[in-house]
């Protein structure tokens, strides 16, 4: 028995049950959260690098599932994010109205489908299986986006389809060239020939569309801003990370042989531009959810800015893994809080938020705490991530990268302080209808988790480096010299 397949299969079982259960979604969700939490804990106790093939069919035929450090961080984060978002969604998509409301009836099966897709994507090393996984995520994500705006969803679907074609094109070349689609096998076989390089370029292109890296981000702000708050939280938190993680597996493991420094620097440069562009666009937004959506465009940039830093000195790999987790949790918290604030506010604009800090202090606090993590202020998870990344950049003499990250933090402060300042301004306290406790608690819990992540920095960074691919420079962490060496080194 292994949690690796159960983490993918359990949400699918819940999807089937939710299609049959009608009004029983509440109990189903409780059961799902308990199951997934237990499985996530189990996953974290595994040795990094634990792997097995599904059904016992060996490679290169079968599909390999593996718990590396990245997966061991991301999957529990998905459980936390999806679980709390689900609790929030119980009010927005109240199970009682499933008989009369199409969105409510469809939300829950799609929610479990997305949960399964995210776990499946983080746990497998099989490039073709990842294609199916990407499409599972796309279906759920586009349908959730359509609950806000059909137009944005259609645009999202078409661009996602094109991204999939490019990804699959690369997979086809790799399979034909090497006779396998498994990343761990490819790591030992890949050569830097033309077909491999082209396949890497095509797959990366397709995945960057799905990860919404500037300038391929055009579909994201309308879709994420229009969707209902719990859907936005899942879209910005979970879905964009899938494309990112597959890109990481390709560049640093499977096809590392074809990943030239020039290519890494191009990705890093695009990441830097994404930080600046996304932040400046966020500053210009008048609507709160559009601001938060553009902030996602900027934060995705950090993930790719780290690419050229990974092989060098410092701990860019840990920073990258950390950032993916911290952003997932903080952004979900922010979208959920924004959803509550907008329900209470007079309109969708930032200017409409006046006085909300007094009317709904807990929700505005959640927004503020999430903002602290996104800006990268201590002691948050976002701070630990950006500290590790900036430190790595400085050690490698990449002053521009370090500068971009610091400027990005400042710009984040500019765009995130604006809604907060408005919420604290105004002399009148708007009358806000009382909200269900779990609806207020979900964003607050997520924001606190993002903040507390900073305190768990050491162990988590160890976890990330524990299962890291061979291309990542192994070196003791700056503040953690005295902690135990990583598990994988112990074993060797």
């Amino acid at each position, binding site marked *: 028995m292994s949690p690796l397949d159960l983490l993918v299969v359990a949400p699918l079982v819940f999807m089937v049950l939710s299609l049959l259960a009608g009004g029983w979604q509440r109990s189903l969700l409780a059961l799902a959260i308990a199951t997934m939490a237990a499985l996530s804990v189990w996953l974290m106790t595994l040795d990094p690098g634990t792997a097995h093939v599904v059904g016992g069919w060996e490679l290169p035929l079968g599909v390999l599932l593996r718990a590396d450090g990245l997966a061991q961080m991301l999957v529990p984060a998905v459980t936390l994010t999806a679980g709390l978002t689900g609790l929030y969604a119980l009010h927005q998509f109240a199970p009682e109205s499933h008989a009369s409301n199409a969105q409510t009836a469809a939300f829950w099966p799609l929610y479990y489908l997305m949960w399964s897709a995210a776990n499946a994507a983080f746990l497998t090393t099989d490039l073709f299986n990842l294609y*199916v996984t990407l*499409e599972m995520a796309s279906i759920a994500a586009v349908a959730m986006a359509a609950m806000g705006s059909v137009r944005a969803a259609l645009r999202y*679907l078409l661009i996602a*389809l094109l991204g999939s074609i490019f990804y*699959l*094109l690369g997979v086809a070349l790799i399979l*034909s060239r090497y006779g396998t689609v498994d990343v761990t096998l490819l790591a030992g076989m890949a050569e830097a020939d033309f077909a491999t390089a082209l396949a890497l370029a095509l797959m990366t292109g397709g995945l960057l569309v799905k990860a919404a890296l500037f300038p391929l981000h055009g579909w994201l702000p309308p879709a994420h801003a229009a969707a209902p708050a719990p859907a936005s939280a899942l879209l910005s938190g979970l879905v964009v990370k899938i494309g990112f993680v597959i890109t990481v597996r390709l560049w640093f493991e499977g096809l590392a042989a074809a990943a030239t420094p020039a290519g890494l620097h191009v990705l890093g440069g695009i990441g830097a531009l994404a930080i600046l562009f996304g932040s400046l666009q966020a500053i210009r937004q008048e609507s709160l959810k559009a601001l938060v959506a553009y902030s996602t465009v900027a934060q995705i940039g950090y993930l790719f800015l780290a690419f050229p830093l990974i092989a060098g000195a410092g701990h860019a790999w840990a920073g990258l893994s950390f950032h993916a987790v911290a952003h997932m949790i903080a952004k979900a918290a922010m979208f959920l809080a924004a959803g509550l604030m907008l329900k209470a506010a007079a309109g969708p604009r930032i200017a409409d938020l006046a006085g909300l800090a007094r009317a709904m202090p807990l929700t505005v606090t959640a927004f503020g705490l999430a903002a602290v993590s996104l800006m990268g202020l201590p002691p948050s998870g976002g701070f630990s991530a950006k500290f590790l990344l900036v430190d790595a950049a400085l050690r490698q003499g990449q002053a521009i990268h370090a500068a971009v990250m610091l400027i990005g933090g400042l710009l984040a402060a500019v765009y995130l302080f604006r809604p907060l300042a408005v919420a604290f301004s105004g002399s009148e306290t708007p009358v806000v209808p009382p909200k269900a406790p779990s609806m207020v608690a979900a964003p607050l819990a997520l924001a606190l988790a993002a903040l507390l992540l900073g305190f768990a920095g050491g162990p988590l960074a160890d976890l990330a480096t524990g299962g890291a691919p061979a291309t990542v420079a192994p070196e003791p962490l700056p503040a953690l010299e005295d902690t135990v060496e990583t598990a994988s080194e112990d074993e060797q």
Partner: protein
Amino acid sequence: MEALATGHLFALTGAVLVGLGLFGFITLRHALRQLLAVNVSGAGVFLMLGGLGRGAATTDPFPQALVITGIVVAVALTAFGAALILRQAEEDHAAKEDDERGGKT
């Protein structure tokens, strides 16, 4: 030799189909036709997989199975895409009728 040529012939046809589909996707301005274009590209990728798996007398069953999976995934997404296009058209249609009514009164 002939088998080699056959495999390459179909794989190259697939490559051209990918390019044609991409051309259609960018230049066609209606979502339904873009959906059709994506399907042409997808069929091209599948044909590349099949052609490059062509041996002396047989075609590798492994890519065959992947292609079948791909075809099913493609039809699922195409069907959802078509439903979105129709929903979008209904919304636009309703908005237009509202406008016309508003203009008359």
